[in-house]
């Protein structure tokens, strides 16, 4: 006698020898495939509520007989997640679990950076304040400038050109030539002082 599989969870279960209806046959095959996938660790996320309920019963039987265990890597991840959840640290964006000690350390990183920056800034201000009254802050550059020959430095060209009379206003190229020749002398002197190296 064929049965109609219209109430999987609450309906009566036929005897083993009862001929299945096509609907029950199809449902049984679908359930068998779900069991196959579950046994190989690939339980599909989506299934009917009835199938899920039956699969849960099947898993209860398997778990009770010790066939289902949490993989060590999964276990470690769950422990890390739980610790992280408990201390309120954000979850890592992807991949493996971050040890909780590192997660906790991360919470202090912004404070450490801010503290260090403040200390460095305070030290810099203190150093400037302490060095300022001594008047040594400007002595270095001035002294160094005094040691350099005048022809090596940037300087006005007034001494070369002198006052420009109105009738010589058009001789700009002669004035530029004079300045160029003077600067070229300085360049040569500097170069020769270094043994001809640039």
């Amino acid at each position, binding site marked *: 006698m064929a049965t109609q599989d219209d109430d999987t*969870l609450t309906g009566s279960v036929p005897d083993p020898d009862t001929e299945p209806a096509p609907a029950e046959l199809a449902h049984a095959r679908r359930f068998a495939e779900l069991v196959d996938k579950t046994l190989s660790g690939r339980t599909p996320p989506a299934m009917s509520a009835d199938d899920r309920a039956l699969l849960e019963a099947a898993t*209860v039987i398997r778990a009770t007989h010790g066939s289902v265990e949490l993989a060590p890597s999964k276990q470690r991840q769950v422990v890390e997640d*739980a610790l992280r959840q408990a201390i309120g640290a954000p979850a890592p964006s992807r991949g493996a679990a971050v040890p909780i000690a590192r997660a906790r350390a991360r919470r202090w990183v912004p404070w450490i950076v801010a503290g260090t920056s403040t200390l460095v800034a305070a030290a810099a201000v203190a150093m400037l304040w302490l060095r300022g009254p001594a008047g040594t802050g400007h002595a270095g550059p001035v002294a160094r400038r005094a040691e350099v020959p005048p022809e090596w430095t940037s300087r006005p060209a007034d001494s070369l050109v002198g006052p420009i009379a109105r009738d010589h206003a058009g001789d700009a190229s002669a004035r530029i030539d004079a300045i160029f020749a003077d600067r070229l002398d300085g360049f040569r002197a500097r170069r020769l002082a270094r043994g001809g190296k640039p």
Partner: protein
Amino acid sequence: MASEPATTVELELEQEQRLVEEAQQGNLDAMRPILERYAGPLYGTVILPRLGDAASAEEVLRDTLATAVEKIRRFTWQGKSIYPWLRQIAINKVYDVHRQSKRSRRLADAMVHEIDVETDPASHADAQLIADQERRAHRERIDETLQQLQDRYRTAIELRLVQELPREDCARRLGVTIGTFDVLLFRAVRAFRKHFGEHAERAEPPRTGDT
């Protein structure tokens, strides 16, 4: 007695107590070895057999361990393992899951009620002993239900779900086609589920602890 060498259980308890005290003083990372030690038994003998769904069981385990870390200051050391306390948190979490899903409540109630009666957390110091006893109690309950099924249904479940033989082998052993074996297993699990939940309607499961 004091001169006798400490047993492994005593040493483990001593270490556990030290870690718990450290955690209660604020070093929550001290809970890690405890959680790593008991995550397996909680999953395999407490949570999964009551839920039947691996993904949900993982979620509940995670919540259980997180709650334990958050509430460790409330735990009072009484010379026994912390495991019964963890177990009770897990059972309460499992029951919460089933309360939200009335579909599977009968199945859950059967396990929650039965095992709470079987194992009194206060009567054992050794977590392993409690886990073993709980596993045994689960198994007796399952076997008792299997005995109520017709022979061919029981055999189908034993071959496919306990021994985990391939469908082809199961069908060959029963002398039927694979299609017929699929129907047998389908009906067998339906029958198991019906029988397994029947005890639950007699009593509400006890819910204890402040977790």
